[in-house]
């Protein structure tokens, strides 16, 4: 029973990170109909910037803020310079551009920061809380992870529901022509959307790195997990992405915890889940049966 609780808690914590990453993918998909496969590399880049600052003697929090700000800038620059020319074109072109960015940024990280494994610090402890006589798998760090993802989600809800900018961004995503006629600067809103998504992605990258080792390709599995989580939720719904992320985190944690040598099978399990969802409910688990994707 205690083992089950621990596996579940681990799953929920990792699920929160997948949820944040999926949320970043969904934000971009809603505004530009592009799946940003470069998200993982972009997040890895900002994580390495933070790591460089920390190794230089700065505090974790300074590094965190700098990383998030550089994520914002990176997202905006990528949208404005590289993505804008292929927006609205054949969908394959946008996919290929995103993949090109993915490889280029990952290689650039290896050139600038080196490709060795480096440990990334976490501001809180990694030792589980004491409950009665047992230590459970809930650590101060996992509380920090869950708390910061929840905070970011709340901020996004406030932004989209209660501010003029949020309304303009929703309008630009809903109907570009109409929004433009009503005076919304659609291009600027798309850039802002990418920048915000990159911030959320960067946060996910920093959180998953905490207390672990980072190397240029450490986000490769996370981009797959984020994509699977987003598909689970339907790729179009932020709430779906969060639920999908949590479900995926739990499922993968059970595979790794209960199957013998299951940690080698986590990526395969994600592949199987993705295939089943795409074949059985391509619109995600929340899709109504009538709303079929063309």
């Amino acid at each position, binding site marked *: 029973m205690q083992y089950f609780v621990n596996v579940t808690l681990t799953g929920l914590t990792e699920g929160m990170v997948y949820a944040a990453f999926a949320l970043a993918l969904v934000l971009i998909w809603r505004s530009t109909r592009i799946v940003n496969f470069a998200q993982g590399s972009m997040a890895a880049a900002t994580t390495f910037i933070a790591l460089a600052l920390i190794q230089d003697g700065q505090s974790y929090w300074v590094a965190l803020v700098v990383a998030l700000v550089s994520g914002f800038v990176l997202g905006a620059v990528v949208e404005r310079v590289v993505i804008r020319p292929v927006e609205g074109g054949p969908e394959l072109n946008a996919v290929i551009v995103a993949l090109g960015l993915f*490889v280029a940024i990952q290689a650039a990280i*290896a050139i600038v920061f080196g490709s060795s494994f480096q440990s990334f610090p976490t501001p809180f402890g990694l030792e589980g809380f004491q409950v009665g006589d047992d230590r459970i798998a809930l650590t101060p760090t996992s509380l920090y992870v869950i708390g910061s993802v929840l905070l970011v989600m709340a901020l996004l809800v406030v932004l989209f529901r209660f501010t003029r900018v949020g309304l303009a961004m929703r309008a630009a995503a809903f109907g570009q022509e109409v929004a433009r006629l009503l005076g919304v600067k659609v291009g600027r809103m798309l850039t802002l959307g990418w920048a915000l998504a990159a911030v959320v992605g960067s946060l996910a990258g920093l959180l998953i790195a905490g207390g672990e080792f980072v190397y240029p390709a450490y986000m490769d599995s996370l981009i797959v997990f984020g994509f699977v989580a987003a598909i689970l939720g339907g790729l179009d719904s932020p709430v779906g992405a969060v639920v999908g992320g949590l479900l995926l985190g739990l499922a993968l944690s059970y595979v790794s915890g209960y199957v013998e040598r299951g940690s080698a099978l986590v990526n395969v399990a994600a592949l199987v889940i993705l295939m089943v969802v795409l074949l059985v409910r391509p619109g995600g688990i929340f899709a109504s049966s009538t709303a079929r994707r063309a």
Partner: protein
Amino acid sequence: MSDLQGPTSVVAGAATDDPPTAATAAADAPSAAATGGRTLLPRSTLLRHLLLVVVGAVAAVVLLEVTDPFTNSQLATLSYYAIAAGGLTVLTGMNGQISLGHGALMAVGAYTTALFLSADEPLPLPVVLLASTVVAIAVGALVGVAAARLHGPYLAGATLALAVGLPGLAIYFNDWLGGDQGLRVRAPRAPEWFEAFIDAVSGNPATNTKWLAYVGAICLLVTWFVLANLVRSRIGRTWRAVRDQEVAAELAGIHLGAWRVLAFVVSAAAAGLAGGVLALVVRLAAPSGFTLVLSLSLLTAIVIGGLGSLLGALLGSALLVFLPPFVTDLGSGWGLDSTEAAQLAPFVYGVVLVLAMIFAPAGLVGTLRMRWLAHRATRAARSTPG
């Protein structure tokens, strides 16, 4: 999907030559014989391709005999990249399906070859390579059935998950597939008739490296002969119909799903054979050899060459082989250490993918072909006024 791909008119009056999308122009330009242009090649597609195979075989022998052993092994590498890229260009260029999972399918072929060759009495090499192809076909059919229902980013994500997930199986079954270390491959020795052949042609020493380079070249020619014929046949035309106009194709009685699965199977077969050749050339089948970067390199090769063009795939593969040493040297010259310099090649791939899609989505061959068609159309319009 297809309503975004408005026809890009090259020049008024050349309507029949208009490619439906600029990105796949390389695949759609009719061959010289089909347009009735002046040509010295035979009119029959089969004969023309057989002639090209003979020319290719002679060129391969000359190339392999005048170059040094190191270039021979580079050419062997080129052959497996070109086999896999040929299959991928048929899938992406002709049928409009993207796959980031071809590295994983190559892994299937490579592991099959490694397992078959580790037997005490290994089967003959052609049988082993055929077995690798068949196993990759089986896996490809499985993936293809799922992929047939997906498009664009969904398909890219699903095959991405395949590329990241499948090598995990090699680690899980580590007793059988060797885990992280992978399987060593015992490449078979060159047969006697090969030594006699090399002795007669050039008198060079018939080393094992040379033998494997010839195996690669033979596999490449066979694969491309099959692919080139498929592309110019009813099957190729049906694939293009499925790619460009789903609704019209379905109205014409084409079963979209079945044809997509077929395209995936054909391209998986090429990937499996490429994996088999890779295992022979590298003498190792290990998860580290089939990373996501391999799949993305293949994608780079076909995008640079021009989607759907076999010639473009060859040029792109040549770039994959000859560019890394060049940029690595360049990087060392700039004061980077060896591991950093080794990352310059993937960096260039990525930048090239982005630039190619923004500035020349038709790739090298496609852009040249469109120029040529436009040029011919203007000339035709000028010579026959009205």
